[in-house]
């Protein structure tokens, strides 16, 4: 079975990339194909990267508080592109009340500070695998 393909993205103006990079590396070490978009990506650029890279997963890292604008936009664009089976996970500084809302909108998981890497890797592995098996 082919490798799980993950786009790790830093949307918006936030430049804090420690978490995104550590997770990208951990996913790579776990045998996944990881594409790191770099900083200051628009939702359009992120979805475009997912399309080009045939990504199974998009991981958004947002510490700036802009998640309520960015996440719905990404979900909307994915749907527009016929990519709404792509797993979207979010990490960063997200108040609980917003995390709830994001999950209702279609974000598969919101990983808050302190989440063990294994949990993130495991979640992505389990959920992305089912997408691959279906295609």
């Amino acid at each position, binding site marked *: 079975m082919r490798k799980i393909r993950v786009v790790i993205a830093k949307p*918006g*103006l*936030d*430049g*804090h*990339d*420690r978490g995104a*990079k*550590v997770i*990208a*590396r*951990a996913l*790579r070490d776990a045998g996944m194909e990881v594409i*790191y978009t*770099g*900083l*200051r990506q*628009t939702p359009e650029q992120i979805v475009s990267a997912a399309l080009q890279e045939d990504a199974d997963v998009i991981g958004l890292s947002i510490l*700036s*508080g*802009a*998640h*309520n*604008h*960015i996440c719905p936009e990404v979900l909307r664009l994915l749907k527009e592109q016929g990519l709404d089976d792509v797993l979207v996970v979010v990490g960063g*500084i997200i*108040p*609980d*009340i917003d995390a709830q809302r994001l999950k209702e909108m279609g974000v598969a998981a919101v990983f*808050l*500070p*302190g989440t*063990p*890497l*294994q949990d993130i890797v495991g979640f992505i592995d389990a959920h992305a695998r089912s997408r691959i098996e279906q295609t």
Partner: protein
Amino acid sequence: MKTTNGTTTRRARWERETLEPALKKSPERAMPFTTISGRPVNRLYTADDLSGVNDKPDIPDPGAFPYTRGIHATGYRGKLWTMRQFAGFGTPEDTNRRYKALLRAGGTGLSVAFDLPTLMGRDPDDDLSRGEVGKCGVSIVSLADMETLFDEIPLADITTSMTINSPASMIFAMYLVVAERQGADWRRISGTIQNDILKEFIAQKEYIFPPRPSMRLITDVFAFCTAEVPRWNTISVSGYHIREAGATAAQELAFTLRDGIEYVQYGVDAGLHVDAFVPRLSFFFNAHSDFFEEIAKYRAARRIWATVMRDRFDARHDRSWKLRFHAQTAGVSLTAQQPQNNVVRTALQALAAVLGGANSLHTNSLDEALALPTESAATLALRTQQIIAHESGVTTVVDAMGGSYFVEALTRDLEREAYQYFDRIDAMGGMVEAIERGYPQREIADSAYRFQQVVEARDKIVVGVNDFVSGEEEPIPILYIDEDTSVRQVAKVETLRRTRDNEHVARSLDTLRAAAAGTSNTMPPLLECARAYATVGEMCDALRDVWGEYQEEAVI
């Protein structure tokens, strides 16, 4: 008297007669004994461990070169550190209110946190600003917002530190005009702009323009302030962000000081005399969790800086030798789980900063792994400093840790590691070149990954996170910033563009572009742009026109 393997007979006897039986009876815990930076820590330090870099003990007196024990002979007996709490959110009105509350609660200096659009030189109505306005700092669009920010706060009587980097010159120009309009004398006002672009490329990533034009903006500030605002700190050379990005203590120390060296070199190359501008360089370090390593780091920093300024740059004035620093407790150490624990973390980190001689200090609030601080959390953070200052007794003596075998050995070891990094970076041609090669970025990414693996393996315990975990927790109240700020700030910028003299703005931006394309100092044109109510976005766009934008090659 030494034995054949180098240990003294006294130590050999202790190990044989006291240590071995104790270990036999009760072995040590099975865990790596290292600092949070991964540095192995010996069981015991004695006078035997105290050899200086040149193999003689070096514990000079406070207030005397090379200032290991502090830059002030009287330490905190003379003057307490400035309690300077970083704050900012929402609109300028919101933040003005918070500043007044902090000053009423006993804060002794102001520190401005700007939102991401402002930090990145974009206006609130820019496409990329959507969702970001006022969220992690105050939104400042033009001079009008700066006037509101400092409404009823006399800039002549207070010092302000502004955490702003790429658009530092623009924001500084606005601040100067506000001060002038309040009747404050530029020759007497004091404060700081962070204005440290090198650490942006290395760690915080809030860059706009490429490295060399960015350095030019900074040397322009050096020259301008030397002449016009002589008491202003033109840079806060920062290690805080480098550390937060994952660096070890040694890397934080080395990269920060090497950045400082780079700024001094660029200033000298721009024709400034070293003693004319170096006294106004200040520093900003992290106050991280490993108590003694942090204290040693600050002491090493002072010793290194003094020595390098005197020996590498031939600085003669003692104010060029004396490293002054602000410290902030480590944001990255705060946990979302069991947030009350963060009060304890912050207190210990603040104590380390004080024992290390910080000249100014910010203490984090307990809720900052979740959001910007509520007023009550911010007040408790300030009280933490006040309790250390007034109840702990540590301020009654100068450099209490001086002479500690462990701390002196750590100080020396960190100093040695820093000089090794300097050599490596010098060999690459300097810090700008090292950054272009991705060297510090890679070092930091490696340290960050290493640390995460150590935590995952539970070789480092983080209380409440990988041990001593609670079940379901009661959510705590947090500061929630909604889109109202964005709506208000966007409306303000639209009104501003309609009501100001747009010809004046256009002319002033043209003058700015011309200065940027040439060699004349950018501060006077920026002051004119500020007075014309040009926006931060417009001023930065003018410079983007001339210099372009920097794109990093990401290093994972």
